[in-house]
């Protein structure tokens, strides 16, 4: 068994003058103290990567900086799925007695540490160096391609996609750490500047500074335990040119395997934390995961199904779209929020029953997927 025993999250947005290592350290200290542990008790470290401060050994760089000498440490790189992939690995590491308390940590000064162009350029490199990148695509364009096809096959409209941006912003309004606190409407999303059609500025997550961390332990350290019930991955391609048909993407495969590994059904889930780099990402993943029928996710947003007081509260912190996206830490905020909800510590964002949660991460262009079920035990 494994438990998420502590979580730490900084505000996302501008952290002028904070380095990648400082943001990681801040989040790590919060998570370790939340778990009620001393930093000397951490014997494993998994960290993500930083596009601002690339390093071939970031986990050891961090361990030295932070003052830990772990028995196990390395970085993990699976794009946006990195946070959940690290959690899955930490789960297996503590279950197999390799480590007792694994610190999963990431942070990046992506907003203030480099120009927006530099970020867009760095991220576009997930494309094929010979057959895609020379054509000048951007990450929004890769997802814009997928969006155009998804809209074509399932009759989804741009107004439908806008609903997801509006919902994430509504949720962010109640979180003091979120990057954005101005309410938006569907009309605002529709009128926002085109980026890579059909995606417009408000369909896209922002670039942020921030850090997130959690501790995965063999035994629970607090009264309420948040246990990893089961998790699984699927990797079908790297480049959008080589992606399979929409009906064969990895999210469906990963969730199928995770259900099998955990014995949990979608009907058991009470809280959802789903990757939302773009509105299309969230719409597609909700439908791939079975949280809405094909082409029906937007209608469920409109009916309040995914709202804080709805049947399936979703990303109550505001998600990547409105809490912010600092790279690997971006989607780790989803897990931090899930943990707060499951342990009844989400304050004015608290949902009535987050006893079983489904988390899903996506890296690349719907290339790499991790699905995970968490369960509250008392």
């Amino acid at each position: 068994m494994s438990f998420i025993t502590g979580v730490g999250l900084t505000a996302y947005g501008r952290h002028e003058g904070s380095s990648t290592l400082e943001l990681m350290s801040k989040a790590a200290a919060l998570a370790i103290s939340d778990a009620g542990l001393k930093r000397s008790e951490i014997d494993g470290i998994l960290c993500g990567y930083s596009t601002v401060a690339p390093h071939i050994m970031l986990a050891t760089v961090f361990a030295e900086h932070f003052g830990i000498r772990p028995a196990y440490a390395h970085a993990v790189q699976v794009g946006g799925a990195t946070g959940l992939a690290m959690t899955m690995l930490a789960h297996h590491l503590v279950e197999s007695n390799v480590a007792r308390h694994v610190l999963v940590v990431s942070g990046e000064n992506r907003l203030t540490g480099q120009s927006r162009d530099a970020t867009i350029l760095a991220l576009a490199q997930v494309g094929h160096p010979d057959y895609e990148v020379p054509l000048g695509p951007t990450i929004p364009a890769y997802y814009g391609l997928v969006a155009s096809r998804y809209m074509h096959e399932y009759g989804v409209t741009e107004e439908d996609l806008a609903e997801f941006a509006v919902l994430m912003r509504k949720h962010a309004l109640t979180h003091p750490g979120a990057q954005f606190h101005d309410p938006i409407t569907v009309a605002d999303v529709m009128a926002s500047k085109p980026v890579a059609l059909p995606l417009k500025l408000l369909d896209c997550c922002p670039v942020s500074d921030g850090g997130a961390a959690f501790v995965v332990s063999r035994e629970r350290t607090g009264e309420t335990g948040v246990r990893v019930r089961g998790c699984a991955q699927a990797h079908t391609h790297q480049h959008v040119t080589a992606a399979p048909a929409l009906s064969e993407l990895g999210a469906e495969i990963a969730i199928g395997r995770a259900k099998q590994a955990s014995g949990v059904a979608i009907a058991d889930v009470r809280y959802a934390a789903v990757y939302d780099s773009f509105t299309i990402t969230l719409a597609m993943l909700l439908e791939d995961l079975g949280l809405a029928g094909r082409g029906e996710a937007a209608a469920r947003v409109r009916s309040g199904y995914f709202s804080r007081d709805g049947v399936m509260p979703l990303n109550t912190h505001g998600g990547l779209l409105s809490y912010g996206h600092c790279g690997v830490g971006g989607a780790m905020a989803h897990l931090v929020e899930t943990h707060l909800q499951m342990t009844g510590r989400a304050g004015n964002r608290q949902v009535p029953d987050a006893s079983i949660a489904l988390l899903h991460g996506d890296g690349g262009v719907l290339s790499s997927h991790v699905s995970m079920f968490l369960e509250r035990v008392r």
Partner: protein
Amino acid sequence: MSGGKHALADWTTGAEAIVYQSCAACGAKQYFRRSFCAVCGAPDPEEMRASGEGKVYATSQVVRAATPETRAHIPYNIVLVDTSEGFRMMAHGDNDLAIGDKVTARFAPFAGRLVPYFAKAKS
């Protein structure tokens, strides 16, 4: 690039051509050049020149570009085309292309090189 022993020049190396590979063992077609077939692993898939005909699978018009070289071209339409030979490729295309349109390739300058560019096929 890890081309086979009979590598044909294509647009990725500056020539006005679209090249793909066809596996003699299993018949699979692949666009990204490799020295083996990614489906069955057989060595040296045969290199072939594509006709430049196909059908639009997806489109995204880029309005926000990330470099001065690409910014000079905005807006430009990125398209995925399912070629008549049976492989999918990324290219540029006319801004009015819609999914399902039958298209033909030519080559157009973009950011200091030639890239495949699709327009509606003349019926």
